[in-house]
């Protein structure tokens, strides 16, 4: 029984962003990187299955990117994954989902994973494509945006998030690829002993051409700040003074204070 989890390292979204000179991606100077949110849920779900089924179940975590992504692979190993695969590819942020999927599928093919977990979408480029494209290439059954998963007596069921709070329930056959949505579980924090143990875990390094990276299907340009549409007013300063200004502005622009609150 083997599970593959695909994780992407992304810049923390709170950073101050600017574009690189080619306008294809961020200028990475000074940015802090972390694991894509949805991918933490993917790692956690794989680990829960491992704990639940025990035995010889083996969890591999794979990430494509520059040397910096090793840190994120280490985090997944410290959470409990058995081994890491680093596809050393500094061009990764400029590659399109098709290319990323070609590499992941190139790795997974012939390794007969029963389950592959990915995130539903990445926060930096949010295409929600990579997981499904990998499944198509491997001819795995695939369900996206799962918020629940159960593997019992050989049957797999998953819950999908639909619009307006509705949830759909599906049954699927293995091998399968599932893309994980926020809220699937509560990802664990690595404990100190597990961090120590993880340092001895193996990280295999591979290169894009070893995995049969394909040509892109899209080109990207004009990477830029999102011009704000708002005509809104920006205020900063000392909290007390701000509070006074805000009350005056609420008074001038809304009726909520005139009515003595909305009660």
């Amino acid at each position: 029984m083997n599970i593959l989890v695909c994780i992407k390292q992304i810049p923390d979204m709170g950073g101050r962003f600017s574009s690189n000179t080619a306008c294809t991606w961020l200028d990475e100077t000074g940015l802090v990187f972390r694991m894509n949110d949805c991918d933490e849920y993917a790692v956690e779900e794989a680990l829960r299955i491992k704990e639940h089924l025990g035995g010889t179940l083996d969890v591999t975590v794979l990430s494509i990117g520059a040397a910096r992504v090793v840190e994120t692979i280490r985090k997944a190993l410290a959470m409990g994954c058995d081994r890491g695969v680093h596809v050393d590819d500094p061009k990764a942020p400029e590659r399109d989902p098709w290319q990323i999927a070609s590499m992941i599928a190139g790795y997974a093919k012939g390794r007969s994973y029963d389950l592959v977990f990915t995130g539903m979408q990445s926060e930096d480029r949010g295409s929600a494509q990579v997981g499904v494209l990998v499944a198509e290439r491997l001819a795995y059954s695939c369900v996206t945006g799962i918020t629940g998963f159960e593997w019992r007596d050989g049957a797999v069921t998953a819950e999908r998030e639909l619009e307006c709070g509705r949830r759909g329930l599906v049954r699927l056959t293995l091998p399968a690829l599932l893309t994980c949505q926020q809220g699937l579980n509560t990802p664990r924090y690595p404990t100190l002993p597990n961090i120590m143990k993880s340092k001895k875990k193996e990280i295999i390094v591979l290169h894009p051409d070893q995995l049969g990276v394909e040509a892109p299907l899209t080109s990207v340009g004009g990477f830029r700040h999102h011009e704000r549409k708002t005509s809104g007013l920006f205020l900063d300063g000392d909290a007390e003074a701000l509070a006074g200004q805000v009350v005056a502005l609420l008074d001038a622009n809304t009726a909520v204070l005139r009515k003595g609150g909305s009660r």
Partner: protein
Amino acid sequence: MKILLAGECREGRLAEDVFELFGFAASLDAEVSLVIVGSPDDLPAFEGRIYFADVRDYGEYSPEVHTRLVMRAVDQERPDAVVFLHSSYGWDLAPRVASAMNVAQVSGVAGIDGEGYTVDCCNGKMRRTVRPMTSSVVLTLQPGAFSARTPQGVPEVFRIDADPDSTVEFLGSRPPEAGVDLSRASVIVSAGRGVGKKENVDLVQNLAAALGGEIGASRPVVDAGWLERSRQIGTSGQSVSPELYVACGISGAIQHLAGMKEAGFILAVNTDRDAPIGDVADLFVVADLVQFLPALTAKIEARLR
């Protein structure tokens, strides 16, 4: 240019946002057709061809079968673009159709930019232009980016069918958890991940109480169990349009904005002045909510006393 719109159906009814697909089509001056697994008595009116399969035969969610059905229409139409909503249905199906067609996909299209498409990235803080390099393309549209349009006319309906064999079986859906109805609140004060910890939710609650309003939340706050799920605002939660909406420590992801941008007056409290909530905020207070919210609450209590 020929485009094929991929409609969708939720609980047996035509999804309302399908009209955003028509809005997109109108901005392109293209020849339009539609493929849908839907209800025979609930098809959109427009001048064009509909490739139709009955949802009672094929189910609301059956991705492998729906891919085959969409491909039937693709084979007939040979469109330059197949256009989905970026919805739970659309983002699931689009890459499968793109794979079957062996063409590029562009997700979350927010605008048309020459030969390419404008797409948001980095949680709405940045944008880029993506150009497909294949002869045709599969698109998903960012929710709300194209205004809905209700065309007129009588479509020509063609029935399509496909092999129903599938490795994925839809067992049914359950409704949202019952809870508070925020749709009638005139003031909503919402907590986002920026509150940092559960205890700080009280700061948001106190402001809501001072204003006589309800507390709402962004998704991570609900996922963390700090507030009940029924208080989530956005595409997978409730849509609200109060007189005043206060977003505390909420970045303004598109899925959150979709649920609150119709509010009368939007006050954002955020430490990051580049946060995309600035897109819709009437007033943006650049401040740490831990200091600012108690100060504001005190001033409002004094004002209403």
